[in-house]
């Protein structure tokens, strides 16, 4: 039987720079595992959500291509090097262009992608970052949520990527677990609720305790 269900593409942009090594990167691994399991327990998310992971350190790359949840393989994550956040945004745009289906006369398109960026520091590729953020907001290629962890995050920088910025105190195991639980809740909510006004802002669940929304 054919299906006319749209996909909800979800991209995770994960900071794998040197500062994430040790407990943080391990927590991210656990977090992805939990996220996939959690989403697979929700029939709507299981049917609609597709997941991709893009990592950024000295270079940015797509470590898991956009895949339906049942076929998703967790990426191997290592933390070392710099923070090519600008590069990650470039990879994101390339992947969206390539992987997300557009609506045509004969084909139902995918939902606008949902993108979660997790970083614990400042980007190290200024030029690329400037170029990528120039028109990112106005193009509205995706609903992006940027989450900064720990003291080295600059709010203003993240605000250049998106208006949806959250801060968490640390990149500790506890906070990262909360982050992934919240990402899971957000994806489930997006797969159920309907954007009544085309182009309007997406609705997300309230952030976990200890997280602050940057106004």
């Amino acid at each position, binding site marked *: 039987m054919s299906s*006319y269900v749209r996909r909800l593409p979800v991209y995770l942009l994960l900071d794998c720079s040197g500062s994430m090594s040790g407990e943080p990167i391990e927590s991210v691994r656990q977090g992805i595992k939990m996220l996939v399991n959690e989403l*697979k327990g929700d*029939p709507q998310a299981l049917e609609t959500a597709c997941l991709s992971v893009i990592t950024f350190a000295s270079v940015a790359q797509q470590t898991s291509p956009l895949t339906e949840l049942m076929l998703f393989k967790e990426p191997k994550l290592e933390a070392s090097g710099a923070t090519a956040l600008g590069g990650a945004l470039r990879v994101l745009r390339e992947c969206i262009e390539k992987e997300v289906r557009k609506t045509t006369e004969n084909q139902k398109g*995918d939902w606008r992608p949902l993108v979660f960026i997790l970083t614990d520091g400042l980007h190290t590729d200024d030029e690329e970052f400037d170029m990528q953020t120039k028109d990112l907001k106005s193009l509205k290629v995706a609903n992006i949520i940027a989450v900064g962890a720990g003291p080295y995050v600059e709010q203003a920088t993240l605000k250049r990527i998106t208006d949806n910025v959250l801060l968490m105190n640390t990149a500790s195991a506890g906070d990262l677990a909360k982050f992934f639980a919240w990402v899971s*809740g957000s994806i489930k909510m997006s797969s159920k609720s*309907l954007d009544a006004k085309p182009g309007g802002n997406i609705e997300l669940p309230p952030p976990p305790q200890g997280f602050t929304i940057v106004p």
Partner: protein
Amino acid sequence: MAHKKKNNNIAKAILMDDTELEYVITDNPPRGGMKYTYFTPDKKYAVQFFNKAEDAESAQMQARLENIVGLYNPTISQDEGGAMGNTSETAAYFSRLFCWPVALIKEPEFGVVCPTYPQNFFFGKDAVKPGVNLDMDGKDKKSKWFTSRSSRWLAEKEKGNFQTMLRLSISLARAIRRMHAAGLSHSDLSSNNVLIDPKTGSCVVIDIDSLVVPGVFPPEVAGTKGYIAPEVLETMEFDFDDPKRKLPCAATDLFALPVLLYEYLLHRHPLDGPKVYSTVSTEEDEYLQYGPKATFIENPQDTSNRPDDLEVTIHDLGPYLEKLFLQAFVDGLHDPDKRPTASQWERALGKTWDLLQPCKNPHCRAQWFVLYDLHNPVCPYCGQGLDSRDVMHLRLKKPMRGRKGQWQQVGEINLYDRMPLFNWHFIANVYPDEKMQNRSMQAYISHQGSEWYLVNNALAGMLSPKGNLVPVGQAVWLKDGEIFPSSNNPEALLLEVVRG
């Protein structure tokens, strides 16, 4: 005070009547659109608090919930503070169909206590097919698991069959009929708020706290994709108090109810077809698909949204349901007043139940089908035909008041071997609803060779076609064309035997 280690996270809630209720505080409690949930240590009750303080403190919200827990509660009897006219029997009946809030919390803050869902609405360890990498243990049985493509991962034994899906459809229609009869509407009826167990053919309506209660300001619920009535979606952009804005009400429930029934019986969504409504954006396409331009995939006049691989259609559900689905999704799709009522659905589903016939093909996934054409008895799911010797039909007629010797047809049933028959098959004005307490088998059908028999199991005063008493344990031979009163009860129905 010394606590055992595992009790470290126990908190106390104080209910409105000042009784105390313990619950367990957990990290990252499950969170819905409105509330988050903790459980009592014995897991018998869910203790729910609001995400937003303004919701918890809203006088409207509190008034609405007080009404839901008390005055309008169909799950407790009137004597115990429940709904008017509710007996303890009907209360017991409906407490199986609803997960209704039982108490309100005043401390530490305003909240709601609900019973947890019965155990059969949770998946167990072996709920998925062997080799499928899915951990379903303990997950609740949202109906999308069974009606969407996700069902391909489930073990066969979880999926039930057409008969069990029809059984739970009747229960859902009955639950909504009861709610609407009290003037309540659910307002967020969806696959997430009705749990189903196809194995046993049961369902339970959950998330009762966003009900629309008469005389109290309605809740601001967003609704769930695919179940929001088109007129609600179309007017969502207006302010909440703008008169042009259409709010959830009984008429919008009467859109969501047939969507669910259609999904249960046909395993697809009535508006999800191939039609592309707009190429501007996915959001616009989606908005038109479920809103102003919504088109039923089985609309007989407008086939623009019809999938090319529809095998089983509403026609295969028999005349009663076909008529109502057309009324709901063609005439009533954009005209809320034309939608069938929950009580019409309950009746049509019940009449369809009587037309069920088991499929002879042991590998048929549906196992049962609606035999609506006696001259062409074929299972629409697998194509297996029935021998005409195996088709037998009874018309049930009741005496017309004040017109001696005249009868009115009140039902038709298809017979099959070992079919149980109940009071409502033999006595006029008796229905298999919440008021019917005697649900024991009165008689059953026995099919041997090409002959059919009606065997008395418990029916008092059962009569043969010749008018002789048939004691319990004895049978009457059902011959084509015979018409006879089923018993000496003055309200007895007349049976007319029709061979296929």
